[in-house]
């Protein structure tokens, strides 16, 4: 017999109401969310928020590009059997890369509305994960065994490449991704459109070295792979005979002040501080440095590609003009007035309602990956199977994406670093402008050297 306090009926009803409310809420969420694991064209699966970066900054170009250019038969909606593709992306509080596959999906939506792939629409299944290896492995199996995807395009995850690499190899998938983990660049089955943290940090450090600093402080977030990432800058600094201090910070950073002080103290007045963080963390450090009045205490500040957003430029203010130099893996949207860039902006506007970050490197990456995939798929004759599609992906060679410094190739090498040429940008009163044009990442980084020995050096991409 249980001793209980006399229970008011009200409490029981309250309990039922709570549980009922929760159940309704979940059901409503399930119904309102527009899809299952697949993401359909252009619909937004997130509730409307006011977080979208203002894309109000008018594009430099005024040429009106019709989005129908994306497909082979403008205006003809594709109605054949869908070609299933898949993507796995990190989406957890504080880190969300969903913009990338969402933009790829927007591109596919455009293609589907304008002829598809030989009349077949593309259906992209997007699986989100929260950096849980078991979940990531399960997601891969879901894509292959339940969704029957024939290709993987748009993966962006902190650890997915490590977890699933052998699975993709075994099944023969050649994935096109935006890489982060080491395996995205060091395995035969993954080719990225970006440079990833290591090579992008290489680019930032390389620029700093070119400005004749006498010491480098390289600070990065403490997520998996720090040693691998640090090895690149270490090699570059060693070759230039410049001492380098390697630091890591646990993220999210709650004490940016001491981080900024530490970096500046270690670098000295003729040194450089190079950061490798996600935009929010980098912003916090730079803002702390500014509040403490430290930004001029070193010769220059550098940052890997994640810092390359207009949002950061706007938040930082004029003190960082020509003080902060950010490695840019993709052509800067604000100052590039080419057909492809305008097409990207147009597609983003028309089909990209699910892309909350607007114009920026994330959506650019998604666009580029989708572009490559469509280019490859267009060359497939016969049935769209795992073999035919991935053979086509692997056969992509010297493709001008219009978003990169070089032509992009997949190829059948044991490792892939197809984007190894980049520019450097600096904030200029709220926008990112070019400080140094396309420059090759130095072969002093052993991985880059190995890749170039296998694949050669890609030609520069003409403006398109």
């Amino acid at each position, binding site marked *: 017999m249980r001793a209980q*306090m006399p229970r008011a009926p009200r*409490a029981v009803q309250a309990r039922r109401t709570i549980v009922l409310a929760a159940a309704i809420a979940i059901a409503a969420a399930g119904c309102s969310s527009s899809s299952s694991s697949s993401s359909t064209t252009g619909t937004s699966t*997130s*509730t409307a*928020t*006011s*977080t979208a*970066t203002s894309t109000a900054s008018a594009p430099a170009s005024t040429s009106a590009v019709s989005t129908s250019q994306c497909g082979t038969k403008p205006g003809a909606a594709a109605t054949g059997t869908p070609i299933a593709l898949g993507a796995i992306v990190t*989406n*957890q*509080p*504080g*880190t*969300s*890369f*969903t*913009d*990338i596959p969402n933009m790829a999906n927007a591109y596919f939506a455009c293609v589907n509305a304008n002829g598809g792939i030989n009349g077949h629409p593309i259906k992209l299944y997007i699986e989100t994960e929260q950096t849980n290896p078991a979940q990531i492995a399960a997601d891969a199996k879901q894509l292959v065994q339940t969704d029957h995807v024939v290709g993987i395009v748009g993966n962006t995850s902190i650890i997915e490449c490590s977890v699933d690499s052998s699975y993709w190899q075994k099944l023969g998938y050649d994935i096109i991704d935006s890489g982060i983990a080491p395996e995205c660049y060091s395995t035969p089955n993954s080719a990225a459109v970006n440079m990833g943290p290591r090579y992008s940090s290489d680019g930032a450090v390389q620029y700093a070295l070119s400005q004749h600093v006498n010491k480098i402080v390289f600070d990065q977030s403490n997520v998996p792979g720090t040693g691998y990432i640090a090895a690149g800058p270490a090699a570059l600094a060693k070759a230039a005979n410049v001492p380098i201090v390697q630091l*890591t910070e*646990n993220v*999210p*950073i*709650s*004490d*940016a*002040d*001491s981080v900024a*002080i*530490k970096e500046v*103290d270690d670098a000295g007045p003729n040194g450089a501080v190079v950061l490798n963080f*996600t*935009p*929010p963390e980098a*912003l*916090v450090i730079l*803002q702390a440095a500014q*509040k*403490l*009045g430290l930004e001029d205490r070193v010769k220059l500040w550098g940052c890997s590609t994640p810092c390359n*957003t207009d*949002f950061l430029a706007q*938040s930082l203010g004029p003190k960082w003009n020509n003080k902060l130099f950010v490695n840019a893996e993709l052509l800067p949207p604000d100052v590039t007035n080419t057909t492809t860039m305008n097409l990207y902006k147009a597609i983003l506007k028309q089909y990209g309602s699910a892309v*909350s*970050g607007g114009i*920026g*490197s*994330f*959506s650019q990456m998604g666009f580029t990956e989708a572009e490559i995939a469509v280019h490859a798929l267009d060359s497939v004759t016969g049935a769209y199977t795992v073999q035919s599609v991935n053979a086509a992906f692997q056969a992509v060679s010297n493709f001008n994406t219009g978003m990169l410094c070089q032509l992009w190739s997949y190829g059948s090498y044991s490792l892939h670093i197809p984007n190894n040429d980049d520019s450097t940008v600096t904030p200029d009163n709220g926008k990112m402008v070019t400080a140094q044009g396309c420059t090759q990442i130095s072969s002093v980084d052993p991985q880059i050297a190995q890749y170039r020995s296998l694949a050669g050096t890609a030609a520069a991409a003409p403006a398109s």
Partner: protein
Amino acid sequence: MPPWSDFEPFIVSGLALGGVYALSGVGLVVLYRATGVLYLAFGAVGAMGALIAWSLGRENVPGWLTWLVCIAAAAVITLGYGLIFGPALAKRDPLVKAVATIGLTLILYGLMDLLWTSSGGQARSESLPTDNGGFSIGQIQVDWTQVIALAAGVVITVGTGVFLRYTKLGTAMRAMANDREITATLGVPVRKVEAAAWLGCGVLAGVAGLLLADLAALDATTLTFLVISSLAAVLIARLRSITLTFAAAILIGLLHDLLTPITALSNYQNMTPFVLAAAGLLVMSRRRVMTQSREEA
């Protein structure tokens, strides 16, 4: 061992960090003294208020109004929680009451991520006008916001200490936190006092949220779980002394930052609050008497 001059700048930043912990920690202890509940949702409520303020700010609502809305939102959420769940859990162990606030924390945390989605390419930041002024101590600049945070910590410590001890309402709150039933039989208007306590707590949470969003980061995860680190100061003070909480928080912040120049230890500096709390608690509980009273000895 690095020279003394290497440590100097970290004294200032350590005090600032200590101020952050103090704001949160003092808030927690004040609430505990006034309501008997260790309000672990303190950070989450403040974060929600700050995010609401941020959203309004983007709609060009004037700054001072957004701050008021932030504080009001925090107050409303806290008051709501207190009125609905306070009486139901009033007779229960402090542990149960604290775990219940974990429930509120999870609800708010989930809501915040739904309403203000993380987007990989951007960050939110909240800045107060006091960020733009300051003075120098040595080579380091201190901005007014940090001074305000520290001052707010002091004011709250002293003010609420005085309030709880010397005013009628404060005494009633303390009595209620100790034993609600007996206080009710003494003729104290329990519901009103309870409402006042929760309302005050909510206001505190809102103010702290605004300051912390500026000083730390406007990020739901950071702000919500900052309470875990400030719990260290709260624990060292055995959840009783507001002044001791304040002092412990400052000490923790100082120690945390002073470890930065020591390269062998700097990777572990985030352990500072936890190690100090564990050590302090274990040292202070060396001799214990088993009691049957509700209050934790």
